[in-house]
């Protein structure tokens, strides 16, 4: 497979910009929905960056706002029910308040999304190749035949055997893993600078999960795009992520390099997430789940949203955890956390050795 035969001619060689360039800058983003119970604060004061050639993992439990923040990157939320403030700059274009026409031009060509459930994310009535070709034709003035060739080429690139025949099949004739490969092919067909993968392996068999993660990793090398990987699975993060953003109740609570955060979490919530992951290699030890459940985004707890579930409140003088929302601050080691603990690294490492 050589990229030279691609009808678009697009390949990493032609790409403007190089690895490490910021392609997406999210600043002070807040997303709020109307609901019957009251306004849902799905995302609050969120800031992060995605860089070409790097993978950012956005981690958190269900309802932590990780999927919502990524839907706003494509403008796929319902504009009538949603209020968005702050700024999202994608490759120089401001997305907050952008017209539907502007968003349409960016979808798939600048930012593409791979969704969680490949079972339901492909249209059951259309052939797989057609669905990929349609995305290509939305951004390129080419004939159906050229777009089909491109679709077959993309299917081959994502490792689908016999791509020409497969392109003429319907989604129900594909296995789950193959369908997710097709979704990735669909995501990359216009060579976007940013690929958002929303729990891309959650609905798949464990053996297939690793293949899909490897594929995303390989394609990122080849295409050089930025990848945002939304997941609650820390094993996935360890495998592919460069940077990590941990979200809790709609806010960023810890940001840093993935390998540092995973080996030495600085926020009690990240710590709790790591401790609740079973380890296959180590000796059987008691898993420690984070007590309680994530809060309702309509009725957020006072002070630090995590305080009702946090074991370290007593380490903070006064009732600050209950009364005062901690700011996201930069620790001397370069990590960013939203926590009142003065020296979280020391406190949390004592906990581990206890």
């Amino acid at each position, binding site marked *: 497979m050589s990229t030279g035969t691609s009808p678009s001619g697009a390949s990493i060689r032609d790409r403007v910009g190089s690895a490490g360039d910021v392609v997406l800058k999210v600043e002070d983003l807040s997303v709020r929905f109307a609901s019957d119970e009251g306004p849902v604060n799905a995302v609050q004061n969120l800031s992060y960056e995605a860089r070409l050639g790097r993978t950012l993992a956005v981690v958190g439990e269900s309802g932590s706002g990780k999927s919502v923040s990524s839907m706003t990157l494509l403008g796929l939320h319902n504009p009538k029910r949603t209020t968005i403030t702050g700024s999202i700059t994608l490759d120089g274009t401001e997305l907050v308040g952008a017209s539907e026409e502007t968003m*349409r031009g960016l979808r798939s060509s600048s930012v593409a999304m791979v969704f969680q459930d490949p079972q339901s*994310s*492909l249209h059951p*009535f259309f052939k797989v190749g057609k669905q990929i070709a349609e*995305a290509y034709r*939305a951004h390129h003035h080419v004939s159906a035949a050229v777009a089909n060739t491109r679709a077959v080429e993309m299917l081959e690139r994502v490792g689908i055997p016999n791509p020409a025949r497969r392109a003429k099949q319907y989604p129900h004739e594909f296995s789950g893993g193959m369908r997710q490969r097709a979704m990735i092919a669909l995501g990359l067909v216009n060579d976007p600078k940013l690929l958002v993968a929303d729990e891309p392996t959650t609905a798949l068999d464990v053996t297939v999960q690793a293949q899909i993660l490897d594929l995303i990793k390989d394609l990122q090398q080849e295409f050089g795009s930025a990848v945002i990987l939304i997941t609650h699975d820390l094993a996935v993060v360890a495998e592919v992520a460069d940077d990590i953003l941990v979200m809790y109740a709609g806010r960023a609570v810890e940001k840093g390099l993935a390998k540092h955060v995973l080996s030495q979490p600085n926020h009690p919530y990240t710590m709790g997430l790591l401790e609740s992951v079973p380890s296959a290699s180590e000796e059987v030890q008691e898993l420690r789940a984070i007590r309680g459940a994530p809060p309702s985004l309509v009725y957020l707890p006072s002070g630090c949203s995590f305080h009702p579930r946090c074991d370290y409140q007593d380490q903070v003088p006064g009732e600050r955890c209950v009364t005062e929302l901690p700011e996201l601050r930069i620790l001397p080691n370069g990590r960013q956390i939203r926590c009142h603990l003065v020296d979280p690294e020391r406190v949390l490492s004592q906990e581990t050795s206890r």
Partner: protein
Amino acid sequence: MFIYIARRIALGVSVLLVTLVVTFLIFFAGPADPAQSLCAENRCPAVKLEQIRTSMGLDRPISVQFAEYFQGLFVGRDITDGGNVNHCSAPCLGYSFHNHLQVSDEVFRRFPTTVALALLAMVVFLGVGVSLGVVAATRRGSAFDRTLVGVSQVFGAIPYIVVALLFALYFTVLYPILPQTHPFSDGFGPWIVGLIAPAIVLGLVTSTAYVRYTRAQMVDTLAQDYVRTARSKGISGRSVIYKHGLRAALSPVLTILGLDMAGLLSGTLITEQIFSVDGLGKLAITALIQTDDLPIIMGTVLLGCVIVVALNIVVDIAYSFVDPRVRLS
């Protein structure tokens, strides 16, 4: 696929045979007496009644009568009416002693009118129902949506006969802006134009169900993951709604359409009666209420049965073209 269709047709034929036997038993072996209806004011003496029965062949065993009827369906038969012998060619549905006419002639002469009315009504209820349903679904919760759903519920709740009568009264009698109906013998133009009024009222009232059904299907479909995927491709909003949304939303509507069309094609009793459309429905009603003409009733029932069975097969085959997940096997 071929085997599937062949099997469905075989099954359909067996359903038809059962219907044939059952209706024959109900009509010809039941308490109704065709000979009675031929007597003026039902005051024949017993001897006269017996004579009529003999002349109609009703005195013979039921199995013989059925065999004769069955033979007529496929190869035709001769029927004696008084002194005259009529050859009734296949498919012979019997003989109306009341009108001295062959049932098949009577039925097939009216069938085109009923078909035209049903198709015109279909154009109205699909056009109005589906397009309004789609608009309501895409603007869910808006004033337009609420008004439309409300109006369709009100109209769907009023008895059809009232709506049709008022419509006929206002638009063809009091303010005759719509043309009156004409028999086919008056020429194609007047005939088809005359069907517009009944088609409009039949179509509009039927469309109230299609508005609500299409809207519900569209709302459901537009919330599907694959529609979100379609939007994430950067294609136009129209493409998302019509190509990806409507295509999927309409496949369940197809089933309802098949059933409704089977109903309309077997004759629309009320509409044909109110607008004096000379179709199957009016033929059946007249035969039933005014003349007690059993062979005519049985003929319309059999034709209706054929239509229902045939449309069911058509819908199943059409489904496999619309939804590739449906395999005909």
